[in-house]
């Protein structure tokens, strides 16, 4: 990140747009590079399957079929159907399992981002807007938390709370709010002294109104970009927790737990760990490419 600064460490805060100049060939090429929709396609595919997949390929984590266990991809099962991605150690269809895992993984990731985002934005804006001791308390708390490796803290919290989807979201949200808080704070710092905010204050706008109507809108786009970038790493953290047995309980499946269950079979039934592994890598990669594009787009918009 080239534009690192104290008040905007992520370089994402959007500056007011200047007037557009006539595009040259070089800028057109640049723009094509920054085109966002191609990177939306793979992400969209994952989201589509997470929402509608379980309707197309029904899957029940509890229902096992031990007659057809450990079948290789493409095998025809005893009921005549074909397991395109093979079956796992208790005979569940891997295709259904990967899709069901996509749904649970995305639900956990998005819920985490929303909760961490709300906590982080509120605390960050408050810190940046009021300054003084409030700012000090909140940001030192954030620093304190950043001193711990995020996943380690999540493991600790998840270990205490026990395995469940809700607890994964709680433990990841607790470790993720800091990034949002820092960004919201820096944007609040840069905006709060601007004329239109001062004008509103002189007109008698309350703190709540100033925060929600003046400071929040100014920081919402970079926060949105940050949220997108974070999805990838939250998906990875959620999968890590499940892999360690601290994520979803054993009667639910997400990618992390399926990979863990398949690790005993890496040499004999490689597909159990590999299929959700590919899906996980694909999702994280496409989300982070999308995030990079969005970031570049906002950084460019800012520099113009």
């Amino acid at each position: 990140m080239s534009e690192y600064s104290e008040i905007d460490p992520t370089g994402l805060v959007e500056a007011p747009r200047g007037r557009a100049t006539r595009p040259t060939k070089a800028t057109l090429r640049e723009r094509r590079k920054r085109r966002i929709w191609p990177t939306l396609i793979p992400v969209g595919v994952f989201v589509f399957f997470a929402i509608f997949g379980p309707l197309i390929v029904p899957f029940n984590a509890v229902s096992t079929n031990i007659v057809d266990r450990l079948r290789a991809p493409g095998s025809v099962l005893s009921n005549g159907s074909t397991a395109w991605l093979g079956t796992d150690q208790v005979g569940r269809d891997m295709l259904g399992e990967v899709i069901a895992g996509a749904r649970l993984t995305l639900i956990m990731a998005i819920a985490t981002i929303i909760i961490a985002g709300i906590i982080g934005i509120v605390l960050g804006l408050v810190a940046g807007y009021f300054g003084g001791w409030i700012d000090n308390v909140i940001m030192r708390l954030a620093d304190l938390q950043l001193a711990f490796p995020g996943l380690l803290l999540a493991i600790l919290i998840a270990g205490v709370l026990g395995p469940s989807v809700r607890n994964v979201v709680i433990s990841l949200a607790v470790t993720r709010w800091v990034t949002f808080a820092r960004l919201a704070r820096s944007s609040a710092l840069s905006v709060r002294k601007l004329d239109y905010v001062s004008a509103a204050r002189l007109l008698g706008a309350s703190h709540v109104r100033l925060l929600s109507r003046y400071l929040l809108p100014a920081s919402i786009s970079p926060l949105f970009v940050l949220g997108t970038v974070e999805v990838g790493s939250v998906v990875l953290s959620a999968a890590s927790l499940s892999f360690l047995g601290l994520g979803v309980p054993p009667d639910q499946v997400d990618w992390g737990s399926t990979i863990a269950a398949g690790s005993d079979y890496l040499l004999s039934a490689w597909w159990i760990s590999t299929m959700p592994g590919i899906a996980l890598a694909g999702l994280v990669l496409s989300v982070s490419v999308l995030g990079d594009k969005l970031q570049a787009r906002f950084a460019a918009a800012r520099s113009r």
Partner: protein
Amino acid sequence: MNNPVTARRPRLRGIAVAGSLVVAIGLAGCSSPSAAAPKVPQNLTVAFSQETVDLNPYGSADAQQGLRVVDNQIFDTLVTQDSKTGKYVPSLATKWSQPDSLTWLFTLRKAKFQDGTPVIAADVVADIKFLAGSASPLSSLWSTLASVSADSTSVVRITTKSPLGTMLANLSLLEIAPASDITKSDFGTHPIGSGPFKVDSFTPQSKLVLSGFKGYWGGAPKLSTLTFADIPDESARLTALKNGEIGLDWVVSPDQVSVVSGTTGISLQESDSDAYFFLWFNASQKPFTDVRVRQAMWYAVDTKAVTKNLYGAAGAQMTSPVPSSVFGSSTQTPYAYDPTKAKKLLAAAGYPNGFTTTIMFASDSAPLIQQQAQAYVSYWAKVGVTVQLQAQPTAVWLQNLLALNWQTELQENFATTGDADYTLGRLYTSAANRTGYKNPKLDTLLSDARATTDQSKRKTLYAQAGKIIWDDAVGMFPIQERDTYAVRSTVKGFVPSVTRAPSFLTVSIGN
């Protein structure tokens, strides 16, 4: 698979031969060359499928396989069971007699503990008293003990309130430790025994390092060190075996046999086993207070299909609450897979729409235990019973198990003494209260069977007790196992054991 260690070995041997030639030529002028091959270091690291949380043979973990396997190396018992004949043979005790039906006299051999002090009768007396009075899962074996005393330094007198037909079986599980040692606080981590190996260091659930005890009465073991590495993850264990980190792995789960079979330098040894699975229902809690619910749970599961598809050649369907090889096993009427009957029974018991419950087990504690639990959960879901999996770490599981803090519970169990008293007589009495099931008639049968020394009468009594346990569905008894050991070819003289606690006295390392 080309193994780097075995591939390298011939070259190393070549270097060694070349080296010894040089030495030989150098020495030729001074003395006659010796042709002795270089001595292979006698250090062996092994790993088995269960965790060792504690070494205290009188503690809460003393019925756990993770403890029995390692304590078998550290301690001696008065008698041991010959694995071929099933007879009890002398160990620390050289001979024994029964002056009357309530009294036993045991004569000890001259043996030393690993700290150099001799094994005397007072130690045995203290050990038996301590175990009988402790809260250990094995203490119920000694419920009929009246008194134990030392006639001399080498003769132990045990008297019982009623005749004890299982005296020798009980003593084959009683590890002998110095009287002064058993109450020490570090007894669970650094115990002293009179067995062939002594404890060098122990880190629970990680590593146990033993070294050979030169003064062992049965001759010094060939190994200088024997290390038990705790590797709960099976694929990690097999990888460790393949790259030579460990020399022996047992038991290999049926799914993993194909991974190691055919590997150069590793051979598979199959063995009969006294291991089996049971799934208990907590009869002290609703809905399992009702016998119809317990039976319905069993009828709802196709144990035959589970055995065949999960375990294949490594498992057989059980016909009684103890494995068929055990003294006192019988043939009971199997619970055929019948979901309709299961639903009817549930409806009759007042659960037409099923109920929600949990199944507790210790994760990674037995081959395919989670897969087995998942299969049951799937079958039960078909009759409307929702069962949540509770996979727990071994130490937590054990605590909950003994506190009856569970609803249904799946575990691998061992008929360690080869006698039905060890399982039936120990686990299913009202006094032991391990399952919440209480039946005075069963109590009488089991105590009669324990008190009788007439073996054919005992057999009949255990058949009757087995029928009650089976028909009342105190638990489900699905699968008895056959074990596979994976052994590196450098490990010589290893013999598997039905108890999964093999002896390492005569094991050595070769080329």
